[in-house]
């Protein structure tokens, strides 16, 4: 296989590139992706809070068609999934690939172009959803004119990632690289299959739900999951400054996730032949194995150094993100079992799980990665420690509030739905308090992440202005920029 010989010569020939050169090659693309993703997180949360208010206050902003619940809710979801989660994890992934490969980020202009087009596509897609061009498929709501460019901008970023991987100077692969490599392959396949079979040459009837379910399963459990695990497996040992517990355990977990996590997506009670639901349940339960493998590996790696989470912000966030990953995995497995799913299906339980995944696992992991990467890439100190504490505690409280009320509210709703004697309107009224709490949680997350966004923008501005045009610095920014970014 030519690829093999090509990469094996490449990874042994040259000496490793110095760390600061790697970071410099990553600076513009990675910081760009991370900053934009943080902006989308804030936008997604803002949309999410508006849609959440609409659920318990139906009159809120009801005059505007563009802000109707059925439009702003999918806009929020897509901003979070594609604007925030995917972009942020890809940015972190690029940096990890460069660092682990001990090579500069290849084709540095390409990911910037890819990143710019990715953001434009997401913006276009959200406008399309708000304008009523929603495709009606879960997590694929963006209309065709946005999903096409999104796909090609992904390819630009992925090409650069693959090149960085192939031209690596360090031969031996680390766990994070496996996950990243699998994830890079996964997205184009699932996304193009879903687009082809749902939008371009649509299949008939419920087959759309089957294809959509398979796509969502792979999008979350494999693609975003692998990207997030790559970051967790990198930053946990890195910030602890000790090796990962076991390579074999990681290998076992990796292949088990790929083979078991990729099936499924249907649920018992869907209008499809029964075996599809049952098969999905079996494979979901099998993901207990990779979940335990990951959890055990991380637990053993952390063993004895738990106190480090208090002193290292990056570690604190990533460890909490990993905890949320395990939690969402275990609860997810429990919730597909027939006895549980007949109560949780069609209830708030589902959005509660999505929130735990996006704000718990993805957002915390990304925040931890950002606290580690951004100061290094910008070669600037974070402006203040107060924002960090504020961000951490608003995140923790916010995640608890957007998750737990919805999970418990979903169980209450499900119990009432399954009692035909309970009038439907009482089911509707019973979930309102839970929705109110989740609005509060969303607001907390919004404030905390807006603060982080402000902080990142400040640091970027300081570095940017400090490097190219110090004279333009305003009086208030000057001293701080000099203190952090100036020559020592």
């Amino acid at each position, binding site marked *: 296989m030519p690829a093999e010989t090509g990469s094996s010569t490449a990874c042994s020939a040259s000496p490793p590139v110095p760390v600061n050169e790697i970071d410099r090659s990553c600076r513009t693309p990675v910081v760009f992706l991370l900053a934009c993703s943080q902006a989308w997180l804030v936008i997604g949360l803002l949309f999410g809070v508006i849609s959440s208010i609409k659920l318990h206050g139906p009159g809120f902003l009801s005059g505007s068609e563009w802000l109707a619940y059925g439009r702003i809710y999918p806009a929020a979801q897509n901003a979070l999934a594609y604007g925030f989660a995917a972009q942020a994890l890809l940015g972190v992934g690029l940096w990890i690939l460069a660092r682990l490969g001990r090579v500069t980020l290849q084709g540095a202009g390409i990911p910037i172009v890819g990143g710019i087009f990715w953001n434009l596509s997401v913006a276009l897609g959200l406008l399309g959803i708000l304008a009523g061009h929603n495709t009606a498929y879960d997590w694929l709501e963006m209309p065709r004119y946005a999903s096409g460019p999104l796909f090609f901008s992904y390819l630009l970023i992925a090409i650069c990632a693959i090149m960085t991987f192939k031209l690596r100077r360090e031969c031996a692969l680390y766990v994070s690289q496996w996950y990243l490599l699998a994830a890079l392959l996964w997205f184009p396949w699932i996304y193009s299959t879903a687009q082809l079979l749902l939008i371009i040459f649509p299949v008939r009837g419920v087959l759309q739900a089957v294809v959509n379910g398979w796509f969502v399963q792979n999008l979350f459990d494999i693609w975003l999951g692998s990207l997030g695990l790559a970051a967790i497996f990198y930053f946990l040992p890195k910030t602890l400054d000790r090796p990962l517990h076991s390579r074999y355990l990681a290998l076992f977990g990796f292949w088990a996730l790929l083979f078991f996590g990729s099936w499924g997506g249907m649920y018992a009670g869907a209008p499809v032949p029964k075996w599809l639901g049952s098969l999905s349940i079996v494979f979901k339960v099998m993901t207990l194995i990779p979940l335990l493998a990951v959890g055990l590996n991380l637990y053993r790696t952390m063993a004895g150094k738990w106190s480090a989470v208090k002193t290292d*912000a990056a570690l604190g966030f990533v460890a909490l993100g990993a905890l949320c990953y395990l939690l969402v995995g275990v609860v997810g497995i429990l919730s597909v079992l027939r006895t549980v799913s007949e109560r949780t299906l069609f209830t708030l339980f589902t959005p509660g799980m999505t929130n735990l995944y996006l704000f718990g696992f993805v957002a915390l992991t990304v925040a931890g990665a950002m606290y580690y990467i951004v100061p290094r890439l910008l070669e600037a100190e974070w402006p203040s420690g107060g924002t960090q504490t504020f961000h951490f505690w608003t995140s923790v409280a916010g995640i608890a509030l957007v998750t737990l009320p919805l999970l418990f509210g979903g169980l209450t709703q499900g119990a009432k739905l399954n009692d035909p004697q309970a009038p439907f309107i009482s089911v509707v009224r019973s979930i309102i308090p839970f929705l109110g709490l989740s609005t509060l949680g969303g607001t907390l997350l919004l404030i905390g992440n807006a603060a982080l966004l402000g902080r990142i923008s400040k640091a970027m501005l300081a570095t940017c202005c400090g490097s190219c045009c110090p004279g333009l610095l305003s009086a208030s920014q000057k001293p701080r920029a000099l203190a952090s970014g100036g020559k020592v």
Partner: protein
Amino acid sequence: MKPDPKKSSNAARPNGPGAGKGSSPNVSAKSPANEAEPTAGLAHTPIWLIILFAALFYWGQLYLDNHAGGFDPQVYEPYESAKLVKALNTGADDLAAKGEPLYGMVCAACHQPNGSGGALAPPLAGSEWVTAADPSRLIRIPLHGLSGPIQVKGQDYTFPSGMTAMGEVLSDDSLAAILSYIRQSWGNSAPQVTPAQVAKVRQDTANRPMNGTATWTADELLKVPLAQ
């Protein structure tokens, strides 16, 4: 939560692309690649995890045996098997099954028990008259009778006497059962004819006597419009 001191020292490096590459004290203090990247230890995968894996795999097989409906596309939640679904369908209302004995009594003498026809009547097996998606022409034949030449499966038939009108003696239920039987036997597989369909044709042709004085001819039947 305080910023990591180690991080701050890393961050305090000169910035900008031209800012003293390599000559900076920070960078030269660190030899090029000496910032350790994560590695993995070589501890074994615990045996209990592998046993659990095997156990779950076994459970999965059992679960699919019991809950996958034999991977049959016709089995939906909450039914268990294709056999059960079939039983539910044939329970109350299998018209064709009810039609079989009636066919033997009323029709088989001329059309033969195997539907092959003969000297007195044309074949029913494979007949386009029988299997047409819309049964409204077919229903008219036993209701009022049929006489004259008829083309079946591309072959012209003329018989000494026509088909008897049976609309007066057979109920909608019986006619529907017989017609369903002939539409689903001997290789025919058309949808069943319901009593309601028979009743509708009866109503549409209310002016036509069913005593054998107003039998149909093939040409006349062909003028009856079919749905689609």
